[in-house]
């Protein structure tokens, strides 16, 4: 469904992503794991056209989206939930969701999606009229995911959905991701929280200093000694 070929991204003189290739099939949940600064976020930003690509190609459903604009990519059903949530804190929860469906012209479908999102995250229904900045961190993350779901995506790019959340809230978020998986949404997930990411995904890529150093089935990686030492704190 998503295919990245020899992607290179540079910031000034620094190479953040150094020629990575990966592929994600329809309905798959794939994790990209790595330390801070490994280039994971940059990879996602390159896919959704937020950063300029130095070289390489990106395909979504067989179409070349390397040069597509951010709005064209959303329209195709590939939606990015950014790191740090990036909800609109001065808008109400409702208006945030409305912005998630910005490109949609189908009001009935929007209404259906709204109900679906509010069923997934009942707290958003309770807080619909509240200004989003007053939500807790966990609620903001749910809003960020809910907002992305408003556009009926085929595939979600999730950047550190557990960042800054308590273990309990993290579990709630992952619970919802499992539900989305069941609904057939393809998920590409970035996490520092490697254990949860490997648990939920079928496959994973390990990224170090801009390169992919390892890739395998998640249940294989979770018991791999190198991965255990580097990303699971040896504790699992």
């Amino acid at each position, binding site marked *: 469904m998503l295919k990245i070929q020899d992607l290179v991204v540079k910031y000034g003189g620094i190479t953040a992503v150094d020629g990575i290739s990966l592929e994600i099939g329809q309905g798959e949940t794939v994790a990209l794991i790595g330390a801070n600064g490994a280039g994971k976020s940059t990879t996602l930003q390159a896919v959704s056209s*937020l950063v300029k690509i130095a070289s390489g190609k990106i395909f979504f459903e067989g179409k070349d989206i390397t040069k597509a604009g*951010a*709005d064209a990519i959303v329209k195709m059903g590939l939606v990015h939930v950014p790191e740090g949530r990036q909800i609109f804190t001065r808008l109400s929860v409702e208006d945030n969701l409305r*912005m*998630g469906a910005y490109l949609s012209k189908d009001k009935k479908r929007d209404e259906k999606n709204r109900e679906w999102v509010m069923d997934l995250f009942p707290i958003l229904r309770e807080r619909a009229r509240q200004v989003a900045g007053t939500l807790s961190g966990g609620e903001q993350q749910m809003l960020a995911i809910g907002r992305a779901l408003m*556009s009926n995506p085929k595939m979600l790019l999730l950047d550190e959905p557990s960042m800054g959340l308590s273990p309990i809230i993290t579990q709630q978020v992952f619970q919802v991701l499992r539900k989305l998986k069941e609904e057939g949404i393809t998920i590409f997930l970035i996490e520092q929280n490697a254990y949860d990411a490997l648990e939920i995904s079928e496959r994973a890529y390990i990224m170090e200093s801009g390169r992919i150093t390892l890739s395998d089935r998640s249940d294989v990686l979770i018991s791999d000694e190198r991965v255990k030492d580097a990303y699971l704190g040896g504790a699992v």
Partner: protein
Amino acid sequence: MTLSYILTILVSGLKLGAIYAIVAIGYSIVYGILRLINFAHGDIMTVGIYIILVLMNRAGLPIYVSILASVAISVFVGLLIERLAYRPLRDATEETTLISSLAVSALLQNILLLCFGAQRQPFMLPGFLTQGHTIGSVNFTNINIITFIITAIFLVALFLLLSKTKIGIAMRACSENMKAARLMGISVNKVVMVAFAIGSGMAVIAGFLLAGEYKTVYPSLGFVPGLKAFCAAVIGGIGSLGGAVAGAFIIGVTEILFAGLMPTSYTAYRDAFVFLLMVVVLLFRPNGLFGSTKGERS
């Protein structure tokens, strides 16, 4: 000095404030989204006035048709400026775009100078508009009332746009977090164009009201009122629309009170007084009266 004199100048102060408010909102909307201080905003006003004059005097169109046509043409000019002078600098620093806007301002003034010459041209409002009334001891004219009505309509329309419509909410979303807005598929260029269109169109109306007040037109007419409207936006807390309106009324009223109450030898300094007022406000409230104290967007 009588009460009726004070009330009468208060009415003119409020009227001037209402005009500044229309201009200040244009500054504030564009600034909120692009962090661009568009110094050419006041000159769009002048362009609009000259277009009205040409359509009225040379093409012989009725005044109201001329105003509407001028709004349409000036919106186009505003969009053209955005496309040519600001969009190529979308990723540049705020200082760069600010200098670009000063260049556009100088360019517009000089184009007007070239086309119409430096001499002042009379600008008379139709008799109906200048008809005076007296209620109690306060004197005011139809144009005063119309100014208040127009400003109120603009404010309500803008409030509805920004709180109810998709494009309006998208404008607020962009002004808070442009990157996240792009991830929603919001086209930043479209949002910016809407902001410039609204700002330019409203500036023409403000320009018409202002020229009626000055009774004359000249190529640099809009520049200083534009600066004052900018001061109003700054005093109110730039980016905050309510703040811009409040700032505009504060400036309009204090300017007229200064001009009306000080000895005539000082009235020439009324512009300087307005700018001094901004400096004083900023000394005590660096983010303006209603600005967020949290600083820049995330």
